[in-house]
């Protein structure tokens, strides 16, 4: 194992990963009805190609790519389209979706399987990744093919596979590395090949020594990372490993780096080697609000309620349901929302775990300043936002915030700092649009 690396700032929320980290991945059968979101990826929603009553097969493209930053969407089951409609989504209030009645879940191999990926050009690989609808599985859901197509003049020399999983509670990536390490490494090689990068590395926090050992035994170069939130954030991971700073407002490719999640690597393998689009993913169903925390392999479009039932149902004092982890995840009003490609966790928090603090005035202790991984001054930006001084918030660097939640977590006054800053970002962007 090499030297343990990290970034400056950050915080140490309790990991709570032992709830689910020992549970092997179990496959959950597709439910009677799957609701396939057409806005799972970042960017423009895909455009429906099917209508009510159409029968669809597993892997069939039910909606096509609609723009550069967009992806096609595929059916995870064989069945009949019940409806094409807007419905509540776990990552936004509502979005377009295709509701499909499941008949069976065989098949799904809609592309030619490429046993030897090096027999194909990087361009072909990237095209396949695009057609298969692969997007970042770590949560942000950015279309993977876009990250693999740097604009001319941008030289990529480093590929970091992100196996950090710094969000507390989540263990999906951990289990994936342990149980399907060969595929993760194959996916990493495919991504490196597509980018023309030599010697890709995989970053893993040292709280997963079994994963580090396993990946190293399979021949991967592991970058061990200090256990600290948000170690897995793209810019912090790049800073820790390469010492390069992604310029404000820029992308990792501006410093010659591409970061891909380990789950994305697995999806790439499915697309390239198996000829299957992205239709399923591993989801950690956990929290003390869940009776039997588990790691489940589920079809995209499966409602959260099915996952919870498979994980033994809710504990009595469950109060909050979250898409993702506790630091950046989004609270759900209902569990009748579908799993999307970016759903790394379904977290049910008990009343004891869930943040309940009432905001008190800032005492200017500066803990948020010391902890901000972007080296901002969260307390002052938040104050500008409270007083609706948007221009001042912008001068204070509000747009650099990536909303990791470190400041809110650490604040002794229980202030929702990241919420104020996100509001400032929205207002600054809206004002800029108006000006333009």
């Amino acid at each position, binding site marked *: 194992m090499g030297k343990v690396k990290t970034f400056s700032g950050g915080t140490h*929320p309790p990991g709570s990963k032992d709830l689910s980290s020992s549970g092997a991945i179990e496959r959950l059968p597709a*439910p009677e*009805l799957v609701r396939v979101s057409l806005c799972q990826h970042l960017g423009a929603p895909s455009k429906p190609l099917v209508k009510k009553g159409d029968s669809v097969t597993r892997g069939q493209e039910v909606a096509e790519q609609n723009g550069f930053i967009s992806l096609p969407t595929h059916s995870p089951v064989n069945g009949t389209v019940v409806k094409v409609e807007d419905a509540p989504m776990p990552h936004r209030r509502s979005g377009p979706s295709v509701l499909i009645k499941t008949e069976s879940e065989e098949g799904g191999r809609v592309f030619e399987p490429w046993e030897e990926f090096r027999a194909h050009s990087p361009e072909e690989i990237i095209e396949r990744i695009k057609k298969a609808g692969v997007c970042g599985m770590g949560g942000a859901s950015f279309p993977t093919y876009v990250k693999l197509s740097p604009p001319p003049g941008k030289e990529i020399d480093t590929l970091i596979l992100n196996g950090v999983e710094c969000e507390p509670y989540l263990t999906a990536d951990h289990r994936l590395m342990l149980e399907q390490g060969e595929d993760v490494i194959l996916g990493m090689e495919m991504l490196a090949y597509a980018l023309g990068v030599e010697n890709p590395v995989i970053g893993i926090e040292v709280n997963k020594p079994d994963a580090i050992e396993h990946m190293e035994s399979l021949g991967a170069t592991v970058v061990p990372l200090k256990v600290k939130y948000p170690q897995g954030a793209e*810019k912090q991971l790049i*800073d820790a490993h390469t010492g390069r*700073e992604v*310029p*404000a407002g*820029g992308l990792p490719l501006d410093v010659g780096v591409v970061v891909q999640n380990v789950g994305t690597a697995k999806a790439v393998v499915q697309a390239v080697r198996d000829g299957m689009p992205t239709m399923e993913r591993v989801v950690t169903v956990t929290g003390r609000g869940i009776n039997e925390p588990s790691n489940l392999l589920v079809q995209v479009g499966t*409602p959260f*309620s*099915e996952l*919870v039932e498979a994980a033994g149902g*809710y504990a009595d004092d469950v109060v*909050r*349901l*979250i898409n993702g982890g*506790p*630091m*950046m*995840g*989004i*609270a*759900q*009003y*209902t*569990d*009748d929302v579908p799993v999307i490609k970016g759903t790394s966790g379904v*977290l049910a*928090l008990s009343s004891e*775990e*869930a*943040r309940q*603090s009432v905001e*008190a*005035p*800032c*005492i*200017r*202790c*500066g803990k948020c*300043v010391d902890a901000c991984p*972007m*080296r*901002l*001054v969260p*307390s*002052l930006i938040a104050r500008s936002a409270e007083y609706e001084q948007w221009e001042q918030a912008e001068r204070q*660097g509000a747009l*650099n915030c990536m909303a990791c*939640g470190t400041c*809110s*977590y*650490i*604040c*002794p*006054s*229980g202030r929702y700092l*990241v*919420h104020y800053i996100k509001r400032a970002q929205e207002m600054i962007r809206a004002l800029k649009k108006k000006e333009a």
Partner: protein
Amino acid sequence: MAESRTFELAMSPHVEGPRTTRKVMTDVVIALLPAAAAAVYFFGLRALLLVVLSVAAAMAAEYLCLKFMKRPVSFALDGSAAVTGILLAFNVPSSVPWWIPILGSAFAIVVGKQAFGGIGHNIVNPALLGRAFLVASFPVLMTAGWPAPSGYSGGTWSTSGISQERLAEIPGADAISGATPLNLMKQTFDEEGMETRMGEGAPERVREELSSPSTYWNLLVGRIGGCLGETSGILLILGAAYLVARGVLEIRLPLSYLGTIALLGWVWGGAGWFDGDPLFHVLAGGVLLGGFFMVSDMVTTPVTKKGRIIFGIGAGVITMVIRRWGGYPEGCSYSILLMNLVTPLIDRYTRPRALGEVRQDG
């Protein structure tokens, strides 16, 4: 199919850290206890009475203000008023009448804190504002008499830190009885005046004694005259160490402040240039109390790392200017009050460079 149900909505993050304002304030109170114990040891039960009255007055004033302004009265129990009360009491001599800390604390809370919007919104340190108010209103009570540190400590000790035996050897020592160490230091700056009062070579003798190991020891232990909480250097350092261990005290502020005091103490704190005694200037007066508990007051000092260093240096310079050339022997409290006023400005100009940020304005 699984039955669906609904949940509460909330903003991320959905978990919270262990630190709360009350825990922070409780730690500060705990850190002040050793020095409070020293105050009782050296100045008797009266010291305890003054501290208790001060804290009670601060909390009562806080409660009444919150009640009057229809704000949650639970803030009165967050510990911040108690800290202000203790610090105010620490800043008065043990000889003051019982109503002095009550008046000072009430002023500190009502005018210094609640008038600006309560916790987190005050511009200057409330306890120091309360002290400034008392010094301006009752200068004789506040600065004229310094009881010797007898209390439960046994023996008789001088107020100046110079041992009684050594003091007896200095000609004309009657003229300096009841003076605090800094008071004596101040007198030496007026060499002619001191020689007239005490005789030839007196300033030199006094300086020599102030910089002797036995005086250092008395300063460190607290066997000197002074305000309640400022005398025992070692116990203040102990309290500060506790706060550092608890992650409450940001060490940049006291270090830059005390470092500046030491440096300037050497530069202009002696008879001529560059022959002052840095150790004496750090141990004497209120700079250990001020440095660890008031320069580092969170609310009224910068939040940026660079800003904290600038604040400490600024306060250190002002303290030493007052000690050398000002009208008071000690400049600690005014230096902090003055720097409090420029805190927002310091914060604005010391914003750290964000990760990946390229500064256009240089």
